[in-house]
């Protein structure tokens, strides 16, 4: 199969959803244009932004960092060591190696040192691992960004992630979640840093292809905690539909983002001018403008933020039932 763009080189990536097949060079161009269009469409980033890129060692986040650097954005990587035996060490290794090859040193947060390694925190708080992980990550994304004077936090969520999340939210009629699902979550003006998902237009297959062709050495194993993640079921269903009707996933998610969609609030009014504060209706996390957590000072929607509450529960359990030392 020849590349549909240059019509000379042999194609390496076939994309039925775009009725296209590309050679590596033309695919790089296609991919970067998709990301640029995703950024432009909702004005996710501006050239003056300092971007904190959250990297896990997986394909999406490392590809995101790579593309943003290539586009000339000022970026730093943030790696959160989840404390998952074996998996976390291997992921961290990939992140450090990727960064070192580009003259970067990522910021590393070690959850074991913070007192909330995911497996123990999940047991201690009796909350599923993925929920604990989400709470802890959101907390540190924001804290590191605030402390480091970053203007925006970027994550590697892709089209498949967002379409799967949308399907889950629709199936359960999570109207509040639906109203907040968007590639652009504004800052709150109260210490909550803007969050963006620049890869929202590209699929997992495209990020994996980009990473492979660019020689990015990412961790291919799945997080052992996510084996039963419901998002995998939604992805499976969507991939079945996608194979029968290529392009459906894109139509599904992009249709959801349409300004006329009554299930979500209009983010097209975003971003606000510098210094302008968010209104309650733009609040990404919950009801109203956040206040400062009485314990740590981070943005919170209760007196104590969810991270501090989690940490306290873990600590209480630790005092009641000390974990046995390994071996």
């Amino acid at each position, binding site marked *: 199969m020849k590349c549909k763009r240059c019509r000379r080189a042999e194609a390496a990536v076939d994309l039925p959803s775009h009725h296209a097949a590309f050679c590596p060079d033309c695919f790089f161009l296609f991919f970067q244009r998709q990301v640029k269009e995703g950024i432009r469409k909702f004005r996710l980033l501006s050239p003056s932004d300092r971007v904190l890129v959250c990297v896990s060692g997986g394909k999406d986040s490392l590809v995101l960092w790579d593309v943003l650097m290539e586009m000339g954005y000022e970026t730093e990587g943030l790696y959160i060591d989840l404390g998952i035996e074996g998996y976390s060490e291997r992921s961290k290794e990939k992140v450090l190696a990727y960064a070192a090859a580009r003259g970067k040193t990522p910021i590393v947060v070690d959850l074991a040192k913070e007192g909330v390694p995911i497996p123990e925190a999940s047991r201690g708080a009796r909350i599923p691992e993925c929920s604990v992980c989400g709470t802890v990550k959101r907390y540190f994304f924001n804290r590191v960004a605030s402390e480091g004077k970053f203007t925006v936090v970027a994550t590697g969520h892709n089209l498949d992630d967002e379409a799967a999340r949308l399907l889950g939210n629709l199936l359960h009629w999570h109207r509040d979640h639906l109203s907040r699902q968007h590639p652009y979550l504004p800052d709150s003006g109260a210490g909550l840093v803007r969050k963006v998902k620049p890869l929202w237009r590209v699929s997992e297959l495209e990020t994996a292809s980009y990473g*492979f062709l660019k020689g990015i050495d990412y961790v291919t194993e799945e997080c052992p905690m996510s084996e039963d993640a419901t998002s995998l079921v939604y992805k499976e269903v969507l991939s079945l539909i996608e194979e029968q009707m290529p392009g459906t996933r894109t139509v599904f998610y992009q249709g959801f983002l349409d300004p006329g969609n009554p299930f979500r609030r209009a983010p097209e009014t975003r971003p606000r001018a510098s210094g302008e504060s968010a209104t309650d209706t733009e609040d990404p996390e919950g009801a109203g403008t956040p206040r400062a957590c009485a314990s740590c000072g981070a943005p919170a929607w209760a007196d104590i933020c969810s991270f501090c509450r989690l940490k306290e529960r873990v600590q209480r359990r630790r005092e009641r039932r000390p974990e046995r030392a390994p071996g």
Partner: protein
Amino acid sequence: MLPMIRVRLPQKKKELEVPGPRRVMDILAQAGVRPTTVIVTQGKKLLTKDHRVEDGETIDVISVVSGG
């Protein structure tokens, strides 16, 4: 023994052999793998789903699906 196509699925810690020549999409169907959920590589090359693989060659099927 005749050489066959060696198909490695490292994330599933699985390996199988199929007779060639055969297109990537047919190999995936035989392995029970959805084509939109994987990339297929051969050394440093990425293969399209209609690429024909010959006997004696080895390909890797890498899942692109991440959960959580």
